[in-house]
């Protein structure tokens, strides 16, 4: 059975009640199983591009970065729409393992075990401006996952000696009525190695990290092999997909988005996670060699020139390859082949509302529900 999830955009400019209503609508649709709340300190849009010309919403709110604390929003969302599964994203750097695991256990307790946490190595935009180290994501993830496993598996206090953390007779209590699930978020050999060793699953972005159904099938096979080689049950290891989409039934709206500087920049920066992928696909790099959004993008510290250069170098082909586009049913047709490798969790992420007419926001939610319905129908 395919599990669907929809990401919610938390923003302190808007009344919290609006998010509650959105989540209720998703819940009541009957085709959306969960919501994902991102733990973001900063978004993807350089300050230079946040203008009413590029994004009408910029006329109403001064910045796209006033995100709410995901761990505080999650219980509110759960109270508003208790049948939705909760998914949170965070990274391995900003919260210490003990606090993070306690939060995870708390949300698992509140939701009756329907709390899932997707954890990556951290993006520079969440780390560097705020004084967090930018070179420790993988070693911290390794420690975190091992500690998580020890916390769940050990019956009492335990010791841990890792690269970043040392625990001595550490114990968060023995209550285990409901447990969370932890997935890795992202890709790359090192993250995959850690996740297949200790996590419950992984979420991967398509077409950004894996740009074809074949690539997903290969990766799924390799990951399940790794899990099995490590003496774990490969079938209980879950693999989910984030699918980046631009939904609109009117092709003219998609055409327009392809020319939008915000969409162009985000397409260039995140369209392929590893810049080698753009080259492998025969497209010019739309940014300097060696630049990568996860280690270099700083929305408030990227030069005007670099932003201009990236937007200018981004072609319609880059944009078209960075997103699945079209009406809900057209996008469902594009996503479905990616799910055929045994994927049972999918989260479409629609970026068009960020630059679209705010009047269309309710329609966007409706299109997302249509898309989830089409995916469930296609996959079962």
């Amino acid at each position, binding site marked *: 059975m395919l599990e669907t999830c929809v990401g919610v955009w938390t923003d302190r400019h808007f009344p919290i009640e609006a998010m509650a209503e959105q989540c209720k609508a998703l819940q009541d649709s009957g085709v959306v199983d969960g919501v994902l709340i991102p733990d973001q300190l900063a978004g993807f849009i350089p300050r230079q591009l946040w203008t009413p010309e590029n994004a009408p919403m910029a006329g109403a709110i001064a910045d796209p970065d006033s995100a709410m604390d995901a761990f505080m929003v999650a219980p509110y969302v759960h109270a508003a729409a208790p049948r939705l599964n909760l998914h949170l994203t965070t990274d391995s750097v900003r919260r210490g393992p003990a606090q993070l695991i306690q939060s995870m256990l708390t949300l698992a307790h509140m939701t009756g075990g329907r709390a899932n946490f997707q954890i990556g190595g951290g993006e520079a935009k969440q780390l560097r401006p705020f004084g967090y180290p930018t070179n420790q994501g*993988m070693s911290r993830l390794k420690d975190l996952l091992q500690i998580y496993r020890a916390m769940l598996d050990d019956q009492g206090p335990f010791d841990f000696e890792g*690269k970043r953390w040392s625990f001595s007779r550490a114990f968060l209590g023995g209550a285990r009525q409901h447990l969370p699930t932890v997935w890795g978020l992202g890709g790359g*050999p090192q993250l995959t*190695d850690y996740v297949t060793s200790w996590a419950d699953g992984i979420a991967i972005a398509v077409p950004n990290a894996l740009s074809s159904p074949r690539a997903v099938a290969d990766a799924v096979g390799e990951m399940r092999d790794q899990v099995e080689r490590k003496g774990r049950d490969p079938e209980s290891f879950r693999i989910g997909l984030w699918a980046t989409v631009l939904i609109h039934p009117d092709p003219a709206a998609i055409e327009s988005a392809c020319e939008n500087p915000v969409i162009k920049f985000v397409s260039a920066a995140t369209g392929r996670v590893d810049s080698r992928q753009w080259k492998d696909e025969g497209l010019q790099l739309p940014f300097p060699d060696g630049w990568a959004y996860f280690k270099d993008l700083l929305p408030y510290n990227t030069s005007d020139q670099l932003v201009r250069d990236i937007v200018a170098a981004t072609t319609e082909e880059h944009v078209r390859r960075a997103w699945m586009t079209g009406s809900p049913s057209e996008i469902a047709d594009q996503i479905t082949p990616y799910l055929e490798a045994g994927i049972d969790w999918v989260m479409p992420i629609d970026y068009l509302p960020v630059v679209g007419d705010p009047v269309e926001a309710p329609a966007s939610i409706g299109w997302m529900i249509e898309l989830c319905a089409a995916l469930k129908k296609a996959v079962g």
Partner: protein
Amino acid sequence: MTVEEGGIAAGPQVSPRLQALDRKWVENELRSHGYPDVEVAALRSTPLATPGAVGDIARIHIEYGSAAPAGPATVIAKIRGADEQRAGMDAAMRLYERELWFYSEFADQCRLASPRCLGEGDGTTTPLLLQDLADMRAGDQVAGMPVADAGRIVDALAAQHAAFWESPLCDEPHVVQPTEPLIAGAVAQLVNSGVPALREYEDRAPAGAIDAVERLAPRWMDVLHACAEGPHTLLHNDLRLDNVFFTDDGTPVFVDWQMIGASRGTQDVGNILAGSMNIEDLRQHWEPLLRRYHDGLLAGGVRDYSFDDCVRHYRQTILYPLGQGIALVGALAGRGGLADAALLRPLLHCHDLDAFTTI
């Protein structure tokens, strides 16, 4: 700033950025790297005998407050070169970034021992701080590698290579792929720049060997591609005896991880044996040492890799240290010392094993 104020009394050859290293920064780094209670009172820097080629390096002497527990008396600080040429080379080759990744994110998984990391700077204003291995015996490439040390090193290499044999981690973005155009192009160019100097060695090398190198040099990209064919594993990739220290019990500790790469395991073996072992020892011991390495691979779980494969790959990959020797001779523009050792050993070994015909 004086030593009493917490500044550094600088040695004359130490990079100004390492001279100006902030006492509080060092204290904070030590506190988050295994010395949680130290109080750094003063710093002093001295140059190392061997300066860094692309980056700057110095020994930092640390004085601690008397009331608090002490940390290491000295650490080694490494930072990117500040001048335009070296900074440009570092940026192109991502040397500091790669070494920082190794110490921050990978060293504890690596089967080869390395210095403990004691601080993780950005490489521009703050350095990498590493355990000072001065109390260990340093390898001496010019003097040559004793057979006993060679044995311990091939044992360590076998454990490392077996652990990462055809591992997905070979595709980790920080890991050098030797056929990357930027890397391979630079290597091929350096090799060809050194070829004219080879004639200075006619009195000590068979004429046929030098002729063979001259014929092969224009095709050095082919050499690199042939050497990089599978099976792949994770390599140190710059393995010279000068990059190895030995503990009291003889365990090798490997430094200089700026080029950690993925290629055939024999590349590390060929590098260290052909580049660092005196030729008579090499002639007598290369095959037993390679056999010992291969046995170690099998013991570590490697399958479907025969000793014949290993020998065939070894014969090919000893061309790699020869290329390094040629490049070094070209760069130093003359004979003697390290250049002689780095060139003549692999040149004669390649001639002995007819490596030139393997491409």
